[in-house]
């Protein structure tokens, strides 16, 4: 079966038969609810060039991809590869391309495209840097093709997380050589390159490549062959970016109908999020999560019938977290932060339920920051620990630290006699000021003064990188596979760092403020265990070591997690079928990309 739109073209002779277009063994996708019908346009909205990930995440041309298998569990499946094998020591990974797999222009996909990607697209002399995913330790992976459809990635050291990372990172593993080589200096002359650049209206041939490469990016170039379910028809900059189905897409439903069901995806450009909200209320959006704020939940809910849609809630994995910087340049504060009791007091002085109620309309979960339930290394103790509300305990702890003297306004004094004041730095995009204001209120109840420093996102990073932050506010995220981003636990993920100077010491990037942690500090154990985990021979081993790290953090709080599992709202119009509720939405699992979007359909 194929879409009527394509059937017409087949009939007209401009397209081969559907059997010729599909690989021998197409990927079979089980629709969530029912077999869909073909046709229709999926209407979305986007904010412009920088929102490119929005449209892209609907249809990433991945070699392997995440699937959600339970409420909070995931798995990885081959996508355009038919299968892959891992050797026992996690150093060799062999992939098999689906036989008969075709680019969206009908050209067959072979290992030549893979080799082209690794030899000509990424790497030092190439348009795009070598992906860190393809490195382990100090050496790069070697890619070799066994035949037209089989290739192997070989690492020197074990790389247990390679496949997981592959499901998440922007490494497509293959580029359409037959098309792209015409823009590559190794294949064509400088003059031709210049001509190509000017045809694309860009400055140099380099601009044809890369994340926003005019020729290479499948959302900017209608001509570039891709493996995604839809290909761009009207690219940006345009008021309305339109994607159209890929006639050669390699997946079918359980009845053998070629996917995707939906003919077109259109993205309308909006300037202000209120416009989008209005579109939602008017029923102009079919399915969208990006830019849908939790704060607007009542609004969305109340307009469900007028806009004939439903608000579908997924849960986020991130936990809103405060990061007391134990190495802040204010040495008195640094010393205080280094006291486990002090950090515990900060934790238990917060009424997380009230925050949940007021800021998240009661839809999130008050919790400590840590890996979520369902994650392989979920640590129940850690998530629940220090997340209760106990003012007396907090006061007791603080008094116990000798912070008993108070100033005229009732705030505690620091050992040096100044008012105990914590400056929380937050980047606008990441935070809800309301939450921080509530925390401000809770902490003043136990005599700790706080002040808010709201900065721009870039500036936040600048400050972090200069160790100019006393306490940061940044979500702890990507925790489902925490080893991928274990920096939060090792204080080396700078925006999530609870000890910037120590983190820098470990990263050894030559920052002047980097300093070695005190002898016997638990962080040394964290570092060594993490190293071991990342180079463990198998994923199981790595996970076991990861659990150890969590146990180290369960002894004393190093950060202040506030609420997590925050609701992520999807606006799903009533005509959109096969969209499940209650999934996890996270960047690692590719947001909406975790469901096969190709099986969504527009009801007739």
């Amino acid at each position, binding site marked *: 079966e194929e879409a009527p739109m394509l059937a017409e073209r087949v009939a007209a002779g401009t397209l081969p038969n559907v059997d010729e277009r599909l690989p021998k063994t197409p990927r079979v996708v089980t629709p969530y609810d029912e077999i869909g019908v073909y046709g229709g346009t999926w209407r979305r909205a986007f904010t412009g060039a920088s929102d490119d990930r929005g449209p892209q995440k609907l249809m990433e041309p991945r070699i392997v991809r995440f699937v959600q298998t339970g409420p909070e569990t995931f798995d990885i499946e081959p996508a355009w590869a038919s299968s892959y094998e891992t050797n026992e020591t996690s150093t060799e990974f062999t992939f098999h391309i689906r036989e008969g797999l075709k680019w969206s222009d009908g050209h067959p996909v072979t290992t030549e495209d893979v080799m082209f990607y690794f030899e000509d697209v990424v790497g030092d002399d190439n348009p795009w*840097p070598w992906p860190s995913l393809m490195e382990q330790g100090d050496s790069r992976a070697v890619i070799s093709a066994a035949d037209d459809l089989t290739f192997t990635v070989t690492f020197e050291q074990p790389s247990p997380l390679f496949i997981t990372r592959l499901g998440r990172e922007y490494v497509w593993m293959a580029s359409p050589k037959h098309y792209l080589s015409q823009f590559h200096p190794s294949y064509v002359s400088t003059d031709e390159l210049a001509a190509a650049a000017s045809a694309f209206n860009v400055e140099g041939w380099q*601009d044809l490549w*890369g*994340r926003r490469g005019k020729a290479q990016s499948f959302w900017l170039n209608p001509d570039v062959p891709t493996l995604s379910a839809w290909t761009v028809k009207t690219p940006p900059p345009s008021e*309305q970016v339109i994607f159209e189905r890929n006639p050669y897409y390699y997946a079918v439903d359980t009845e053998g109908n070629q996917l995707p069901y939906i003919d077109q995806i259109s993205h309308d450009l909006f300037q*202000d999020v209120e416009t989008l909200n209005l*579109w939602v*209320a008017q029923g*102009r959006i079919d399915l969208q999560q990006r830019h849908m704020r939790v704060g607007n939940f009542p609004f969305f809910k109340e307009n469900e019938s007028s806009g004939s849609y439903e608000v579908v809630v997924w849960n986020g994995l991130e936990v809103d977290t405060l990061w007391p910087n134990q190495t802040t340049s204010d040495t008195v504060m640094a010393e205080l932060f280094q006291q486990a009791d002090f950090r515990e007091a900060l934790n238990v002085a917060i009424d997380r339920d009230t925050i949940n109620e007021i800021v998240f309309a009661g839809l999130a979960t008050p919790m400590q920051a840590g890996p979520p339930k369902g994650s392989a290394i979920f640590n129940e103790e850690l998530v629940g620990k220090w997340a209760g509300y106990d003012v007396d305990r907090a006061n007791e702890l603080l008094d116990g630290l000798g912070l008993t003297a108070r100033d005229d306004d009732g705030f505690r004094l620091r050992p040096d006699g100044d008012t105990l004041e914590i400056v929380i730095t937050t980047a606008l995009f990441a935070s809800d000021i309301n939450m921080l204001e509530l925390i401000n209120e809770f902490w003043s109840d136990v005599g700790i003064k706080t002040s808010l420093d709201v900065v721009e996102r*870039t500036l936040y990073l600048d400050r972090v990188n200069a160790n100019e932050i006393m306490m940061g506010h940044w979500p702890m995220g990507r925790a489902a596979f925490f080893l991928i981003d274990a920096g939060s636990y090792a204080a080396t993920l700078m925006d999530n760092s609870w000890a910037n100077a120590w983190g820098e010491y470990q990263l050894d990037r030559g920052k002047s403020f980097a300093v070695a942690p005190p002898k016997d500090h638990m962080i040394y154990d964290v570092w060594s265990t993490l190293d071991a985990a990342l180079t463990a021979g198998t994923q199981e081993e790595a996970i076991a070591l990861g659990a150890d790290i969590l146990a180290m953090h369960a002894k004393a709080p190093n950060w202040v997690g506030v609420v997590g599992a925050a609701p992520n709202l999807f606006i799903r119009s009533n005509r959109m079928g096969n969209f499940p509720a209650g999934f996890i939405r996270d960047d690692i699992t590719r947001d909406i990309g975790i469901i096969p979007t190709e099986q969504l359909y527009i009801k007739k």
Partner: protein
Amino acid sequence: MTGYIVRRILWFIPTLLAVSLVSFAIIQLPPGDYLTVLESQMGAEGDYNPEVVARLRERFGFDQPFMVQYGKWMWAMLAHGDLGYSFEWRVPVSSLIGEYLALTVIVTAATLIATWLIALPIGIYSAVRPYSIFDYIATILGFIGKATPNFLLALVLMWWAFDTFGADVSGLFSPEYANAPWSWAKVRDLIAHMWLPLIVLGTSGAASLIRQMRANVLDELQKPYVEAARAQGLPEWKVILRYPVRVALNPFLSTIGSSIPELFSGAVTTAIVLNLPMAGPMLLRALVSQDMYLAGSFIFLLSVFTLIGTLISDILLTLVDPRIRFEES
């Protein structure tokens, strides 16, 4: 006359150079550059790669000193009419801003005309019947329009239109016309979408116009030549339209140029709220993401429009008001 225009155009050159320098300086003012923004965007999406940024930094020449960057931009502009390159959109600025500027000009011009059409008769009537009920109502309504922040008015009107009519009043086009090539139907669609921006933008300008027109006409009505015209036996409406209104209009012509930046600035917030594909929101984005050539070119071109507007209004003025020409020669 021609000599005058030529001189004015010659004046353009130093002015434009200064304008371009200021534009460029403005966009260079904020700390960081496009790549710091890109870095944080990449960070948010989880695909931060320092090497990418380093390569881009070199490619875009961000490591060069200010004057070198400016010089290159200017040179490209002078030599090839090339406005530079939008980092964010990865296209030359010139290919990006054409339509936005065109729509901006259309909306701005329409606003200007609509404001005049509303404000002038009201202003004249207020002057002819000063201190009448009508005069007071017009004055107060006008001032309220002036006092209400554009974005607030836009949002409230947008909600009101949705709440009462379920109408979508945002944007300049219906979705089906957004990408369509220009056609008669698209123009009609544009006109149908234009009323809200016109109200929002017009109300803020109308008040001052009404007041000015009223004051000007009142002034002119005191002049002896009005009495002389009456003494000629001309009917009152002819007396008013033929003489004081003609003369009172002149100051307006002279404000065409200066009202362009004003209108444009008011339009930024309105365009954002109403989702108008105009230069304002694009410029704001460009500024926020430090897409410097795009932002710089916008500011530069808008200033050029203003300068041209000023020139046009000066020329119109000399055409319409014979006294000016006299002072000129």
